[in-house]
């Protein structure tokens, strides 16, 4: 077993922000990564029976090498277990309870030592519910402290919220998580997380100030058929690109293919011809952000 630290990403946010949905997506689309997902309890996690390879009280082994582990009261025990899993997971995702402060959890995980490296704190915020939560005197300070510890905030449920609520949520995220990157689509956040490059979260302090990660997203629609494989490979070779997805008309015959790219890995699969060509590229803003596309 190698001694490289296990990368860990903390996923926080209040009840209803979509953490469980995200975890389910992650487990369904691990893209070949061996993920270990730590949840407080298995309560709301509907894992399809055919995915389960083995199960005991607090660990579910899934097809494809992912595991899901409930830590209940004992996060440190669960982390120890992650370190001893064989084969070792590629990435640990830690879902916090709805009232937990992710910054405090990051501090606690940091005590685990050099064996685990906190890559970043992702906080999910419910676009529909956030304005009311911030008006709730019992909850507001907890939500604010959660947002304040985020490196990346994902505004979820934008499809369910009124424009007023979405705007109010955006405003409040800007106010309380002003240094964090904001994304407004949970699918994207999923893939940022999977890229294992969420941020360079180097702090170990409680509620420490967030660290910049700058991610930009753009949509590219080539004017005609392209060599999809060559394009995908060039994106994969570009360090700044963490995620790309969408559909391309493949040269020379113009059939539509779906591109899924996470980090250095990509797949191209036949797509429904009715879909519109175009790919979304998400990249880190670095000194030279230009890409091949």
């Amino acid at each position, binding site marked *: 077993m190698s001694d490289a630290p296990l990368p860990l990403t903390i996923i926080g946010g209040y009840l209803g922000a979509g953490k469980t949905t995200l975890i389910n997506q992650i487990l369904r689309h691990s893209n070949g990564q061996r993920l270990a997902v730590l949840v407080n309890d298995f309560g709301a996690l509907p894992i399809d029976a055919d995915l389960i390879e083995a199960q005991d009280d607090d660990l579910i082994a899934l097809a494809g090498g992912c595991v899901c582990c409930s830590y*209940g009261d004992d996060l440190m025990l669960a982390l120890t277990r992650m370190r001893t899993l064989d084969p070792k997971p590629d990435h640990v995702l830690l879902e916090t309870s709805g009232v937990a402060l992710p910054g405090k959890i990051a501090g606690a995980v940091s*005590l685990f030592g050099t064996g685990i490296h906190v890559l970043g704190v992702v906080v999910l915020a419910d676009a529909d519910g956030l304005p009311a939560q911030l008006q709730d005197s019992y909850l507001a300070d907890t939500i604010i402290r959660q947002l304040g510890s985020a490196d990346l905030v994902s505004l979820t449920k934008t499809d369910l919220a009124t424009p007023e609520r979405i705007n109010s949520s955006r405003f409040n995220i800007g106010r309380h998580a002003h240094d964090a990157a904001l994304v407004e689509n949970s699918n994207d956040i999923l893939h940022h997380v999977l890229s294992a490059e969420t941020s360079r979260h180097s702090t*170990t302090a409680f509620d420490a100030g967030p660290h910049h990660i700058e991610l930009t997203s753009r949509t590219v629609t080539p004017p005609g058929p392209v060599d999809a494989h060559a394009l995908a490979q060039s994106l994969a070779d570009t360090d700044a690109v963490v995620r790309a997805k969408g559909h391309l008309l493949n040269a020379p015959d113009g059939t539509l293919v779906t591109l899924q790219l996470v980090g250095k890995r990509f797949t191209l699969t036949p797509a429904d011809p009715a879909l519109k060509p175009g790919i979304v590229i998400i990249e880190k803003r670095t000194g030279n952000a230009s890409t091949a596309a």
Partner: protein
Amino acid sequence: MIKIFSARKILTMNPQKPHATHVAIRDGIILGAGSLEELEGWGKYDLDTQFADKVLMPGLVEGHCHLQEGALWSHTYVGFFDRMSPEGDMQAGCKNLDAVLSKLAAAEARLEDPDAPLPAWSLDPIYFDNQRVDRAQLDAISTTRPIGIMHASGHIMNVNSKALELAGLLRHGINHEGVPLGDDGLPTGELKGPDVMSPVSIHVGFDRDMLSCDEQGMWRFGKLCVRAGVTTATDLAARLPDEAVATLRKVTGNTAFPARIVPLRFHHGVSPEDLIKHVEALAPQSTDKLRLGRIKIVVDGSIQGFSARLRAPGYYNGAPNGLWYIAPEHLAYILETSLAKGIQVHCHTNGDEATQLVIDTMRKALRKAPSSDHRFTLQHCQLADTAQFRQIKELGLCVNLFANHHHYWGDQHYDLTVGPERAERMNAAGTAARQGVPFAIHSDAPITPLGPLFTGWCAMNRKTASGRTLGEAEKITLDQALHAITLGAAYTLNLDGEVGSIETGKRADFAVLEDDPEEMGVEGLKDTRVWGTVLGGTPFAAADV
């Protein structure tokens, strides 16, 4: 077979017949209390005069303690106050840091295995001018075996270098508010808060599940009950996995085990839906000495750990507000579902904001699932004000106040955590009584020693460890105190029809006392000597356990 005990005096706690000289029992049940003449009509009997010079009370009921107290006695006690071990050895308090260190050194010398950890408990540096223990002092005792001392509050631990090393914490670059660093940039060995303590505590010999209790610990706990006159005790935050339930059933099922245990299933680490399912499955496994099927919710943290949720004006020293240990929606689900299903719930609320959240949630839950006799209980409820007690009364809630805490840490609350005014009204038993809120008082053993008579003294006198009377208006009377540690606590557990008073039809559970609490009075109640107990008609002498 009928047995009649004679006694110097029987305090029945039954207002219809407050005093008696004899009590008749059959099959573990009280036939009646009164004079011998009044009881003879039940039929042929054996007269047992072993308590002829003793005073009987109903077996005392501790409504908030933890079996963990029994488990801790296999570790070294280094508390400031003298404390009676389960075996009856009065361990002298450690009055200064040197005494702590020399007691540890003596315990170390007795260990044969060179790698065995040395766990100790109940350190309280506030009694020696907050002098901190550091790693070097513990290293002087041993550099080869891990040493850990749990503070009395349960919120801080001091460990030696070996313990830090085993936990991977003897390194530079640690940046965590719960891990103070020395001049050398390495941790001093003081660990603050559960997050920080848990990775180290297993290496120093504490159980991973701090609240769990093994078989030996349970037997020790039983001995402590006999010494304290307790016949019914809670285990207020148990996880109750199958193995633990099997152990509880085995031990309490032994006729030699001297107490009835009421374990409450702790909400944490399990989804609200699974919690309800688990408790429903536990309830039918109850016996007359093991009462399962209740829920304990921890709503916030502790006041001295600054993790309790306070309303304005917040902490006296300006510390940020504490933490929620449950989401309000989950609290609402558990309260509503439990009301609808008839499951009893106790909620730990230390701060007044936590108390208010339970009040508000309960009000809504009762509208959805009306219930006239739920007896949901606020545990600790230390900072509630009078308006909250009025709401508590309206909603049919009970409270179990932490009278002992007020004695041990009242000065600290006065000076540091909540300031004078709220420190004076903390654990407001007087207000509870005036507002007609059913109340009990508790030790939260092992945080403070199990001993309801002492707890009653604390609630009547409200004297802090420094001798200050803190909250004159919240003192209660002797009658109220004796009620609180018998029927009052039994009521919060819905067991008042069964235990808590000596009257016909109830269980023959008694505290057997050498002194008469009514003579000992307000000042002297804590010095009442306990001979032992009777459980279901069977005597247990403290001298023999």
